[in-house]
């Protein structure tokens, strides 16, 4: 879109009822719900609006770049977090364009870690608060899952049957589990096992992390963002929010860049859904005399308690072909080690996923971790088809020292300070990783695999604007409403209080649905 076209759109739009920053899963749900309720919604998305069928390709190298947030971030700490394609999406759809689509509900214990274990913090909500929204989201996006999911609190049924057949990577994982009397199950996935809402079932091509071309995998791009646009939401791609403007203690709109020019969008309510790095960065960049340490930061908690999941990959070589490139990357999992086990000597736990892989991720992980090169590298990769992989998702406890801040010198292409992301594991996190790797090795060996490589990695990002009842130590309330600025909301995984051992997207979507309901109620009652 040219600047001229953009300007004419802006003139027509006047003041938005809601300006949402970020068209990922949460921003898209809010846009859909609020525009369907009749409000004028504008979504500012830093990245492009892509068409999977005509713009995406079947290639790791190309898509890992195309779907990732590639603006510079500086990483530091004892365990610096690999960013980019690993955890950061760009464009309408956000991270869901390249996520693995594992769709788990949190457990009741996740919300009460401090009460139960004396570590971290409790959430201001319970499982029961999210339960109806989990059900709604699962139906909307078409989650496929087993007839009976073995773990509390939700045994199913899922809207669609489980994926069948499972791939070889999942089969050997489940065989290892079975021989050790560990329960395993096909994973609940936001990937279709049958036609649903004009979307076809999965063809097992295996490129979930490179963008699903057939639309079998849910993404916000092909669901909520489209439904929002159908309901009249104005979704503006290639619009990078630079500053939330406040006056007299209330947000009045958002400044943003489009094709090198700066614009201002006036809005009655501002909702930030820009995720764990960009949301706090925007709050910091919006500082004023009244809010010198960033907006919504009277608690000092903005940018703090950054949490990835520990996500170590365990590779084993088998004496038969696995062909790890086929099928959805994650097809089976165990949650037997999810809850605190007093015998362990640490709080909380982990899950283990079967986890397929294509050559670029396989070789760059192993070469990058072990610095293997030359003949040794070429020889090991000849056996690519004989490897299988299982992967940990380990809970990481919140720690205020792990944080997002702004760099004092470096600026990005918009002239905005570049974020610095500092992370180091704590003792409890490391104990979970040790135990998790031990279990992964046991499972691989029980399945007759020979464990060859264990590669340290992380997945997902949470925290940096956590929710809570106490304005002294949290940024937003249970409905994602800022404690300090009444018409500013934050709705992305930055509001997560703890990381839990579960993939976060389904829970984020349930939180977004709950927030949308609250906003509709509050707006109708003129309380915003």
């Amino acid at each position, binding site marked *: 879109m040219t600047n001229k076209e953009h300007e004419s759109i802006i003139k027509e739009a006047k003041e938005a009822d809601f300006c949402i920053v970020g068209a990922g899963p949460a921003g898209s749900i809010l846009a859909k719900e609020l525009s369907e309720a009749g409000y004028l919604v504008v979504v500012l998305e830093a990245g492009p609006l892509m068409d999977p069928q*005509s*713009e995406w*390709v*079947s*290639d*790791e*190298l*190309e898509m890992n*770049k195309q779907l*990732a*947030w*590639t*603006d*510079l*971030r*500086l*990483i*530091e700490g004892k365990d610096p977090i690999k960013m*980019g*394609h690993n955890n*950061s999406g760009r464009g309408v759809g956000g991270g869901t364009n390249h996520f693995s689509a594992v769709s788990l509900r949190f457990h009741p214990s996740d919300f009460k870690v401090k009460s139960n274990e004396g570590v971290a913090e409790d959430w201001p909500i319970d499982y029961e608060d999210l339960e109806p929204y989990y059900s709604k989201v699962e139906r909307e996006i078409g989650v496929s899952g087993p007839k009976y999911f073995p773990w509390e609190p939700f045994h199913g049924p899922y809207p669609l049957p489980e994926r069948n*057949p499972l*791939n*070889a990577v999942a*089969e050997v994982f489940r065989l290892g589990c079975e021989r050790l009397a560990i329960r395993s199950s096909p994973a609940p996935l936001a990937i279709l096992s049958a036609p649903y809402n004009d979307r076809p079932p*999965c*063809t*097992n*091509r*295996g*490129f979930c992390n490179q963008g699903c*071309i*057939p639309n079998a995998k849910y993404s916000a791009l092909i669901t909520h963002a489209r439904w929002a646009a159908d309901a009249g939401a104005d979704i503006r791609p290639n619009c990078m929010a630079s500053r939330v403007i406040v006056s007299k203690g209330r947000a009045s709109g958002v400044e943003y860049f489009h094709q090198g020019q700066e614009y201002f969008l006036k809005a009655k309510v501002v909702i930030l859904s820009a995720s764990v790095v960009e949301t706090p960065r925007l709050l910091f960049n919006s500082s004023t005399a009244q809010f010198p340490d960033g907006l919504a930061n009277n608690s000092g908690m903005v940018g703090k308690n950054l949490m990835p999941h520990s996500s170590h990959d365990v590779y084993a070589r088998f004496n*038969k*072909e*696995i*062909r790890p*490139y*086929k*099928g959805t990357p994650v097809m089976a999992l165990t949650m037997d080690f999810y809850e605190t086990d007093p015998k362990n000597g640490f709080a909380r736990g982990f899950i283990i996923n079967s986890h397929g892989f*294509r*050559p*670029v991720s*396989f*070789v*760059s992980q192993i*070469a*990058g971790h072990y*610095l293997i*090169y*030359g*003949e040794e*590298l*070429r020889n090991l*990769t*000849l*056996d*690519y*088809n004989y490897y299988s992989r299982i992967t940990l998702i380990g809970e990481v406890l919140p720690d205020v020292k792990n944080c997002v801040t702004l760099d004092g010198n470096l600026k990005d292409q918009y002239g905005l300070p570049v974020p610095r*992301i500092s992370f180091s594991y704590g003792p409890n996190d490391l104990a979970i990783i040790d135990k998790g790797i031990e279990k992964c090795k046991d499972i691989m060996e029980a399945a007759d695999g020979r464990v060859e490589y264990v590669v340290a990695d992380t997945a997902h990002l949470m925290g940096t604007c956590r929710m809570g009842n106490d304005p002294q130590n949290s940024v937003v309330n249970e409905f994602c409403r800022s404690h300090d600025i009444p018409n500013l909301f934050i709705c992305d995984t930055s509001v997560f209080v703890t990381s839990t051992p579960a993939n976060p997207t389904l829970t984020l979507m349930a939180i977004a649905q709950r927030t949308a309901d609250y906003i509709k109620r509050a707006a109708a009652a003129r309380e915003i």
Partner: protein
Amino acid sequence: MRGHYKEFDVLRSFVKWDERTQRLIKDRMASGEKVVFFSEQEQELLLAVLEVVLAEKDEKLLKRVAAYIGDSLGNGHGKGYRDAALPDEKDLFRKGLQGIVDTAHELYQGRDFSKLTLEEKIAVIESLKSGQGRGITWQSIDSKKFFKELLTAAVSSFYSQPEIWSEIGYAGPAYPRGYVRVELGGQDPWEARKND
């Protein structure tokens, strides 16, 4: 040809791929014709280093990898993060290549990297990999971190080449047809068949 799949050529499936992917792979295979970002001397050195790091003699493959690295640096489209202790990627690669020159000179009485024997070249790489790279460049840059950046960029490109997919028995792009036999022991007719 070495490995388990001597008969396999992933490009036999080329016509089954979607058009955009066909074009991408065709362009990738032709990408080694141009030198991007690097000076002539840098390019020559980079190719000599890649030959050792990837244990590959075929210059057309090495040139594609060099072109990928050069293109990533030259078009300013980064990978989205960098170690706060490292200079920006362009600087890192320029200085890192100079560092390899320095290390070779230090270890082998002023001889250039490309003039060394394979064993000597490996000794230079090992020096980098140890994090104790010899030479003045490595006083300000951690040679191990540079080597990791170089290696991961190189393998990401190298293992995206159809010739290498064929070597390791990877069936490549799979849109629109996908896979039917995904279970243990299952195999679609167009996938790589093991040597007899």
